[in-house]
């Protein structure tokens, strides 16, 4: 029986009004205490247990990234195309026990910098002295990042500098000088690469390389013969650079084996990370791709890789993958993968992905579920690099995320123009000549970095402003290290066309920590791929020694675990890449353990 018409009409109107008001109310409730966030050291220490203080200048770091100037055919969208290249990696290049910083530059003739840690809170750029500065000469391309690994097991970390151009391999000569060994190594002549990692995929004790192309390798961005080299689609592009799996033959020689090993992709790679997701003892390879889906290459006993993105759930929804970092975020002894994407209000809301192993799916098979929304780490902005690390030593991995793409005129946005071509057909989007001119507009610029602290119960809380991270530079690469050997993780951020920032960390007293520095003997000497599990209070946290992760970055190889109030963890288990296992019972906390692989 129909209701009274007046009552019905009033009720329907009220219902519609309530539905329309719902998003506003939701935002009010979800917004919580926003707007009262101010950096206050004492407050941050009390509430979050740590505070980050930007102190690059005070530490003697005066590095400012410059972007390359590409072919004039790209002048109308230059800042958008040349929007990558700021990258940072951590290494102890001279084995003095202190973490140093290598940061790359990209402008023609610009200099990369190697900041030697002097041990008194200051750094000194020694790149010129050791031969790692002059890597951006005209005609050779622009540096995009660097990864460190001891490829010849002589005890000193060597470095691969990957570029939009000629990748360069340098041998570390005893921590005093670096010798260019690119030709002897047989590296490819030209790769427009935005990611590279060291890992020993076949566990033969020698570090191999993965190198991921972004633009096609036959494109010289400074001497274009065509403008038709852009992605054929915003979400389904497969016309990017090829991938290289470069096997270490020993004796300083390498062999490219990607086709033989089953890696055959032309997606637009921006990030890669290797980790043993299945407990096979062999490192799998996760690749985050721009303009498309992520790829997961499962390592089949070091003999072959099998792409299983769709099968495992990570390769289904295409986004703009720009980061790949792993962390055991729930202390379950399992790696989750964080992939950053793009979110812009009302235009493109991809959301970042936190891929959590999902045991509820098919038993015995690897599967992931995206829990970024549920855990509160989904919306960043135009996100790039991210790293996990326990910033307050409470025993749970926190997450530092950089955001911001192109910051030019703050009052004018390129999003509208970008959205026109982004939705266009292949014939339109793939030709740079069709892209509307940038004309000084910003595209996803002036964005706040995010620092999410992990409550250990499945939620992260954003505290960047309150924790002291207030800069709005276009963040790219982020790396973490304990620069002062005090059991605290500091954070370094490389910004595109901006300064290198060093966020010194102050942690509230009371929480304990433990660190491990591993050296392989049967395994590769850098111990890349080694897994360390720390058990305490009925939980376990897994970390791995990494040969590169995040976006164009590499954390300190040393592993840092916060322990909360626990002064003596139950035990520590180490699985070396060789398969050798090592156990330490009840180690004392607040110490760095330097361990050699037992053979």
């Amino acid at each position, binding site marked *: *029986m*129909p*209701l009274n018409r007046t009552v019905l*009409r009033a009720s*329907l*109107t009220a*219902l*519609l009004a309530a*539905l*329309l008001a719902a*998003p*506003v109310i*939701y*935002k009010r409730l979800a917004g919580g205490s926003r707007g009262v966030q101010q950096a206050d050291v004492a407050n941050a220490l009390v509430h979050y247990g740590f505070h980050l203080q930007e102190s690059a200048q005070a530490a003697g770091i005066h590095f400012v990234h410059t972007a390359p100037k590409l072919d004039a055919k790209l002048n109308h969208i230059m800042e958008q195309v040349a929007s990558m290249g700021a990258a940072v990696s951590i290494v102890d290049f001279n084995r003095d026990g202190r973490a140093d910083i290598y940061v790359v530059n990209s402008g023609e003739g610009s200099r990369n910098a190697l900041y030697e840690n002097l041990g008194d809170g200051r750094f000194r750029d020694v790149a010129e002295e050791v031969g790692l500065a002059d890597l951006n000469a005209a005609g050779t391309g622009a540096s995009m990042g660097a990864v460190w690994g001891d490829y010849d097991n002589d005890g000193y970390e060597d470095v691969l500098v990957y570029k939009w151009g000629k990748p360069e391999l340098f041998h570390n000569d005893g921590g005093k000088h670096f010798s260019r060994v690119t030709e002897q190594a047989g590296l490819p002549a030209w790769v427009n690469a935005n990611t590279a990692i060291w890992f020993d995929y076949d566990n033969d004790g020698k570090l191999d390389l993965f190198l991921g192309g972004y633009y096609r390798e036959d494109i010289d961005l400074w001497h274009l013969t065509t403008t038709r080299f852009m992605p*054929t*689609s*915003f*979400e*389904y*592009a*497969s*016309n990017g650079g090829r991938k290289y799996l470069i096997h270490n033959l020993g004796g300083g020689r390498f062999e490219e084996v990607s086709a033989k090993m089953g890696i055959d992709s032309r997606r637009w790679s921006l990030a890669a990370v290797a980790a043993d997701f299945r407990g096979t003892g062999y490192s799998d390879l996760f690749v985050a791709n721009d303009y498309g*889906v992520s790829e997961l290459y499962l390592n089949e006993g070091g003999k072959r890789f099998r792409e299983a993105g769709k099968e495992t759930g990570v390769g*289904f*929804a*295409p986004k703009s993958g720009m980061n790949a970092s792993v962390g055991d975020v729930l202390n379950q002894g399992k790696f989750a993968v964080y992939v950053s994407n793009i*979110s*812009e*209000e*009302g*235009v*493109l*809301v*991809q*959301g970042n992905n936190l891929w959590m192993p999902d045991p509820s799916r098919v038993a015995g098979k690897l599967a992931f579920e995206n829990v*970024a*929304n549920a855990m509160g780490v*989904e*919306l960043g902005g135009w996100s790039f690099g991210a790293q996990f690390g326990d910033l307050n030593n409470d025993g749970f991995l926190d997450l530092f995320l950089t955001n911001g793409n192109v910051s030019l005129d703050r009052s004018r*946005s390129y*999003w*509208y*123009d970008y*959205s*026109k*071509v*982004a*939705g*266009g*057909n*292949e*014939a*339109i*989007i793939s*030709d740079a*000549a*069709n*892209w*509307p*001119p940038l004309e000084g507009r910003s595209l996803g610029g002036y964005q706040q970095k995010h620092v999410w602290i992990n409550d250990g119960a499945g939620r992260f809380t954003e505290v960047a402003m309150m924790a002291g991270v207030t800069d709005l530079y276009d963040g790219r690469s982020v790396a973490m290290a304990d620069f002062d050997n005090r059991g605290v993780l500091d954070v370094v951020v490389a910004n595109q066309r901006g300064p290198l920032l060093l966020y010194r960390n102050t942690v509230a007293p009371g929480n304990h920590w433990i660190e491990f520095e591993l050296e392989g003997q049967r395994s590769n000497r850098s111990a890349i791929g080694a897994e360390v599990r720390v058990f305490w209070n009925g939980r376990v946290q897994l970390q791995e020694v990494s040969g590169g992760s995040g976006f164009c970055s590499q954390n300190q190889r040393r592993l840092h675990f916060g322990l909360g109030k626990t002064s003596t963890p139950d035990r520590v288990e180490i699985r070396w890449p060789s398969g050798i296992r090592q156990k330490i019972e009840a180690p004392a906390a607040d110490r760095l353990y330097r361990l050699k692989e037992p053979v």
Partner: protein
Amino acid sequence: MTATVNRGSSAIGRFFSLENRYLAPFLITSILLASEVAFGLLESFSRTLLAISVSILFDLVLGRLTYGRFPNVASAYITGISVGILVRSPVFWPYALCSAIAITSKYTLRWRGHHLWNPSNFAISAILLLAPEYVATLSVQWGNDVWPMTIVWILGAAIVYRVQRFHITLAYVLSFAALSALRCMITGHPLLAELAPITGPMYQLFVFFMITDPKTTVSTRRGQILVAFLVAVAEMILRLARVVDAPFFALAIVGPSAMAVDIWRRGRKTQTVNQGNGKVAAAPLPNYRISGSASSGPAD
């Protein structure tokens, strides 16, 4: 003008007839499934199913409350599936909310017995304004190949031709193209950049399944062409103001205004006829079944 055209008596003919209210749901579902299998178009199946479920649920409840019986859910299904395709959000609630707003608006925003806004257009426009942090619209391609786009254009054109709405689509597309050239001259941007949006799936769904909506388009053929042109003009103005979701807002502005004028004119015409011959002669509404707002139940 009436839309009852004899399409033959074969089963296929009957299926592809104007009277078949399941034709549009069938076709839009086919396009959806094909594009999902081929390109993973959807944000997720579960979100699309949520949008469809909420849409149908609201239509059943509000239809029952309003008219005392359950409506046919074909139109609610199309509203839900349109929301499921066109809304892009990493979270679930916008899909449910958008569907709820769409169906509720159909029962609420009415004048002289007709609803004014295309429900999914109204809801998507509202949620874009109210929750831009969480919502965007479909802005990607049919894969990276020209063929899927071509197939959708041909299929979509055939559908709207069959149900006698092709002139609306054609008027809009031609207007968009001409006004793109004008925008190109004004902005100095490449012509292909201005034309690019219409090559994407969002526009194809817009021109085939939203602006042709029988229940929210005016009654005369000439009027329909004029309104399609005016939507394109409004969109051009919004585009010059750099509004990303210009087509939705343009239709949300022009559509109800045109409907209001049309309803008012028909009311006057009916009145005049009644005064002239003393007979009751209601000006007929179109009776096609294609779009998300084509309320095929009692709410009509």
